[in-house]
């Protein structure tokens, strides 16, 4: 029974993305993969690492210049995200300011070994969206009992930023039809059935396209 369940889990789910995410978790001080994967740094890695440095600068020295850089890059993206989810321009502007202010206020909670700046900002924006659009609270998982290190490990941080760049490239390389559905699933504030209604595609087609897209991403992250 145990074996059966384990197999079901592995095939139905995500061995590679799991491995990928686990490298970001301190429980899984995994394998020799880490040492091998520090390679040539691309521009995007460099950018990701710079955003991390900006957030650390806000945390440590309330650095307004660093905040202005983050704001210039991310605020227009957060605003676009909120507008695609169905908020009007005025509300999106307002919510984006709140999201960016939250970034400042919670900078001490940012852990660059677990998320890139973009991922962390995405989660703040998503929670603000749920609050603004649906007036619902959002139950969040309990924090890990070991908390976070005061000084995140440099190598872990670097690996995570590289993998983030790799994932971004893999998403950009998806076939249009698949990327489109992934974007709708994240940005549209639509359930899969609502996407079916909106696009006129059968629900089964939507589910299988999303599955194919995830398979491709897993393959790319190997």
């Amino acid at each position, binding site marked *: 029974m145990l074996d059966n369940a384990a197999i079901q889990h592995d095939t139905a789910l995500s061995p590679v993305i799991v491995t990928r995410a686990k490298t970001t978790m301190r429980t899984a001080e995994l394998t020799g993969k880490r040492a091998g994967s520090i390679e040539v740094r691309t521009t995007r890695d460099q950018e990701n690492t710079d955003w991390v440095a900006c957030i650390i600068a806000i945390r440590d020295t309330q650095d307004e210049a660093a905040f202005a850089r983050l704001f210039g890059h991310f605020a227009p993206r957060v605003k676009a995200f909120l507008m695609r989810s169905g908020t009007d321009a005025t509300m999106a*502007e307002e919510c984006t300011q709140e999201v960016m202010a939250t970034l400042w206020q919670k900078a001490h909670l940012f852990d660059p070994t677990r998320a890139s700046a973009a*991922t962390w900002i995405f989660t703040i924006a998503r929670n603000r969206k749920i609050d603004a659009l649906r007036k619902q609270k959002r139950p969040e998982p309990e924090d890990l009992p070991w908390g976070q290190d005061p000084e995140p490990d440099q190598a872990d941080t670097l690996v995570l930023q590289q993998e983030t760049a790799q994932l971004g490239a893999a998403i950009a390389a998806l076939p249009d039809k698949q990327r489109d559905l992934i974007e709708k699933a994240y940005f549209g504030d639509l359930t899969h059935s609502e996407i079916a209604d909106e696009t006129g595609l059968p629900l089964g087609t939507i589910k299988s396209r999303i599955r194919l897209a995830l398979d491709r991403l897993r393959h790319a992250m190997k």
Partner: protein
Amino acid sequence: MTRTPITHHLNDALLMSYSAGTLPEAFNLTVATHISMCDDCRARLGAFDSVGGALIEGCESVAMGTDSLAATLNRIRAAPVSAPLTQNANTVPTSRVPAPLRDYIGDDLNAVRWRSVGMGVKQAILTTSRDATARLLYIPAGAAVPDHGHRGTELTLVLQGAFCDEVDRFGPGDIEVADEDLTHTPVADIGLDCICLAATDAPLRFRGLMPRIAQPFLRI
């Protein structure tokens, strides 16, 4: 305390929808509670969140208002300066109730106000948004929850004890994702009363006559 390994996990669709923020509150609660107990799904959620991050990074942008940076800095300055919360400030490490659920029922499973639904089974409906229902189920050791099917999706997360149904055995931390194709009769293990957190997006469908009549009254 030794923890038995969790063998029944969330599927991709649920994790992705949780990450995207499109699930009803009752499902968010159940997913967040499972993730609090399951490092594997926590790691997978991290991966789905990073898809969201990559999409934000890659998406087009909409220009902010001309004074918005200054306005945001003003907001920051106007906000009350509070001592930074440590991540675990409000967790009670000794509690058996995972943090997301604690916000709904407090930290004592014994203090839940149960209502009988018959055959020894009890439930407590939690207050969430109305697009789906979250409830705690109390199944006495050895007892069965009446045979039922679902119109929508039902998530059942074991908090204490264990149950078996036509699919498998589910122990602490395990989550069963049942869709309309599944009609099942969960039976609690002998030895320990079983407590589950369950979320449904449509009423359960009992096969016997009596429960169906009782259903609208009991909100099963």
